[in-house]
């Protein structure tokens, strides 16, 4: 026999089965391309040149590589299993005609090699081409300069070959396993072994409802942003597991209840729809749950990253209210004077002028909320406590507060003013450990505080009567350990905008401020006191770090979003095909028994519509429930503009729904072609 026989047979097979093979091949190609793209981007030297913040971006992209690899494995296996199911009959026929399992294995081997080689070659080429485009998009999102020229990462190509080589080998083994485990008669009958009616699994259905409810409840009930962050992934897992349970068990339980209701069930429309749906759900539940989860991920990812991106200016404005901030910490009453003098000197040196100056002295202290009191004594704080229990309290004297805010507030002995926008106030006293104050007034405004804003915890502001009280509090929260000396000192922030400053001048001033510890320390020593540390916040720098982080996140969001949409398309396509083959027979039987063609088409259409739009509706509900939680997390990142997030979510959902509708209509054509 010609030694190329199997090679040729494999090629002919693939051509004959184009309807299922082409989408599979496309999937493999795009997955390879996607893998190469994200992998090459993560090591692209162009990113190194993108000034500051390239480190964060690299981490984000590196994470993306892992997600894509995992996705590739699951997805290619999934589509392949579908392929094998469709081809069982053909393979069984070969077997009956006299091809041994060894021969079949050789044929399958060639097929897998073809698919592997084609998808790797074409995928990599496509990846290299698209990589440049992706890089341009990424650079654009990050507002960075784009270096010219193509970049080909041989390392990424090698990784792709390795990953997908192993993957295809595993798929080959899996196909072999399937061939060897079944006998030809079973193979011949293929997919149409008498489908059993699914069992009602009430327990699973109830667990599903419970988990989903729990997840939703977490999402809705948590008001503390920090807690929202810590519990977000837990809620996500609850909802994912709940979705799978509901789709697999819940749907069937509901349909069976409907079937038990004779009045409802024995109506022409319901009769066929309900019984048909029970089987459709049995075969499709997992696929539909996949679609639902993927869709939700796409929606959540794109809408949140997009609103972060759009709302970034707002966010930066909130966190870094001025161009630059010089922050010093020390054991002295003269921090304010020292900071002002140092900054003035530097500005003079650089021939620059400051405006919009904000300077005040305060004490930032991390507190743990225990009951209704706040514990700031480090030795009494519980180290194992969740982040959500912590908050940052800014203490400031009445004199400073009135000076900065231009107010004329007054305080009695044993009274404080309280600013607590993120937490409900309980009672009219404020306690730190054993010491309590009466709350004189609740404040609606408080001076901007960068050091507190960059912390992920809740922010509380407290205005105390005088310097003595401030010192008393400072002692309360001091670390007993000398190693931490200075960490809990009183701070002074001197923040300002530069009048007509260009970026070069800004950078020079920034540079000077970074190395200003020595002069400040000397100055403070002269005035009386010791300097513990200095720090500089430079808006432009923070901005570029944010840009690369959020631009990177948005990029990964869009990238994965596209990939997931592609996966959704493919799952829907395959589902339509398999549904089509199954329905064909039912279609003819119903016609013979006395249903007219239009009626049949209508009921089938309504069932198929329900099946395919159920995941979209569920995804919509998931997104709606995720909304408050993500809103709070974004709030933590200083994105206060809820309206923007609402808009982004609604727009993403609409775009996605339209896309989904288009995909459905296109694939439905294949379905109708098969059925009629």
């Amino acid at each position, binding site marked *: 026999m010609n030694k190329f026989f199997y090679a040729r047979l494999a090629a002919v097979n693939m051509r004959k089965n184009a309807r299922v093979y082409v989408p599979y091949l496309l999937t493999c190609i795009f997955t390879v391309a996607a893998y190469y793209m994200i992998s090459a981007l993560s090591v692209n030297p162009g990113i190194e040149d993108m000034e500051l913040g390239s480190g964060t971006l690299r981490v984000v992209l590196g994470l993306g590589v892992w997600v894509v690899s995992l996705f590739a494995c699951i997805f290619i296996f999934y589509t392949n299993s579908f392929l094998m199911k469709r081809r069982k009959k053909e393979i069984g026929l070969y077997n009956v005609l006299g091809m041994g399992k060894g021969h079949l294995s050789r044929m399958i081997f060639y097929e897998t090699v073809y698919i592997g080689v084609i998808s790797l070659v074409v995928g990599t080429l496509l990846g290299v081409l698209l990589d440049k485009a992706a890089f341009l998009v990424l650079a654009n999102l990050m507002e960075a300069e784009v270096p010219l020229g193509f970049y080909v990462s041989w390392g990424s190509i090698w990784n792709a070959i390795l990953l997908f080589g192993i993957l295809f080998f595993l798929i080959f083994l899996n196909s072999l396993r399937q061939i060897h485990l079944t006998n030809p008669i079973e193979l011949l009958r293929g997919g149409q072994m*008498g*489908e*059993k*009616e699914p069992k009602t699994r009430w327990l699973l259905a109830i667990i599903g409802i419970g988990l989903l409810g729990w997840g939703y409840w977490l999402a809705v009930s948590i008001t503390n942003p920090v807690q929202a962050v810590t519990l977000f992934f837990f809620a996500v897992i609850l909802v994912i597991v709940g979705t799978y349970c509901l789709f697999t068990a819940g749907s069937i339980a509901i349909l069976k209840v409907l079937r038990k209701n*004779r*009045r409802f069930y*024995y*109506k*022409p429309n319901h*009769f066929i729809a309900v*019984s*048909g749906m*029970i*089987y459709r759900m049995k075969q499709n539940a997992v696929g539909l749950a996949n679609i639902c989860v993927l869709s939700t991920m796409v929606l959540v990812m794109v809408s949140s990253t997009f609103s972060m991106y759009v709302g970034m200016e707002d966010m930066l404005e909130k966190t870094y209210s001025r161009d630059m901030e010089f922050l010093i910490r020390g054991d002295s009453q003269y921090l304010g004077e020292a900071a002002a003098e140092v900054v003035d000197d530097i500005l003079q040196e650089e021939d620059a002028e400051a405006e919009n100056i904000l300077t005040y002295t305060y004490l930032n202290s991390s507190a743990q909320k225990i009951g209704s009191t706040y514990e700031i004594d480090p030795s009494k704080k519980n180290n194992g406590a969740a982040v959500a229990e912590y908050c940052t309290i800014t203490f400031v004297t009445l004199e400073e507060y009135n000076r900065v805010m231009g107010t004329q507030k007054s305080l009695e002995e044993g009274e404080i003013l309280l600013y607590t926008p993120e937490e409900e106030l309980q009672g009219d006293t404020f306690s730190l450990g054993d010491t309590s104050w009466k709350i004189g007034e609740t404040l609606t405004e408080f001076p901007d505080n960068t050091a507190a804003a960059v912390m992920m915890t809740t922010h509380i502001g407290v205005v105390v009567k005088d310097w003595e009280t401030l010192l008393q509090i400072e002692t309360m929260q001091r670390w007993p350990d000398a190693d931490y000396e200075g960490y809990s000192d009183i701070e002074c922030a001197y923040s300002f905008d530069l009048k007509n400053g260009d970026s070069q001048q800004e950078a020079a001033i920034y540079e000077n401020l970074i190395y200003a510890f020595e002069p400040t320390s000397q100055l403070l020593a002269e005035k009386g006191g010791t300097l513990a540390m200095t720090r500089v916040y430079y808006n432009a720098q923070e901005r570029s770090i944010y840009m690369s982080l959020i631009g990177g996140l948005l990029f990964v969001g869009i990238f994965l979003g596209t990939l997931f949409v592609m996966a959704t398309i493919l799952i829907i396509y395959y589902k339509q095909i398999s549904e089509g083959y199954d329905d064909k027979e*039912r279609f*003819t*039987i*119903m*016609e*013979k*028994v*006395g*249903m*007219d*063609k*239009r*009626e049949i088409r209508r009921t089938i259409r309504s069932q198929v519509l329900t099946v395919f739009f159920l995941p979209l509706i569920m995804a919509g509900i998931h997104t709606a429930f995720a909304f408050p939680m993500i809103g709070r997390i974004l709030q933590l990142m200083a994105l206060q503009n809820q309206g923007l997030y609402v808009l982004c979510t609604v727009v993403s959902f609409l775009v996605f729904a339209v896309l989904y509708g288009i995909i459905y209509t296109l694939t439905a054509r294949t379905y109708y072609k098969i059925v009629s």
Partner: protein
Amino acid sequence: MSILEVNHLKKVYTTRFGGSHVQALTDVSFSVEQGEFVAIMGESGSGKTTLLNILATLDRPTSGEVLLAGKNVLSIRERELAAFRRDNLGFVFQDFNLLDTFSLQDNIFLPLVLSGKKYPEMQERLAPIATRLEITPLLKKFPYEVSGGQKQRAAVARALITQPQLILADEPTGALDSRSADSLLRLFEEINQGGQTILMVTHSIKAASSAGRVLFIKDGEVFHQIYRGGRSQEELYQQISDTLTLIATGGAVASSVNYRHHEGGGRHE
């Protein structure tokens, strides 16, 4: 009174681009009396299935007419056809054609549900039929849970439950083992004795010999027919067998001339 009259049916299949014509039915005429049990026999390709499809209103003839209870079924409009089929015809197929998404009971109810009948009425109709067909304990089961013979009896129940004018059976014993086939044929005889008109297309001499009359189709024409008369099933079996041998060997050509004039009611001696 004849319940079914078929006059000069002709069916020509044309390939998609009109390249070639295949004449499936040349000129078929016969009639079935109320309460008769008629079997139609013929080789593969003789036009049996085409004939049955036209009678079932699933296909339309090129020319000719079909009268069911005096009504020309070919004049029924497309959108009323389904309802017509449901109310007047019952079907029993070789491969049962039960929907595996329904329990046997729901499969039997299907035509009634489609006609908008209420559950109590359906239940009332089903009970006696199920008892007679001995499928009462199986009603809650699904098609994949029961044997071929049981499936076929459920299909018969589905055909009977609408109380149709005519039952059309297409190779009903084709997929059954001999015991199930025998019991199904006895069932058909019983039903027929109860007054139900049955028209059965079959290959099997055994099946045909349980009928009251056997029509032979060859090359798209009714070629010959035999009445059972007072004969036993064994005798009829022998007669059918002889006729088929005649048809298959060249002798048929000569004898066809002799048999032709018996068509339309004459008893064969």
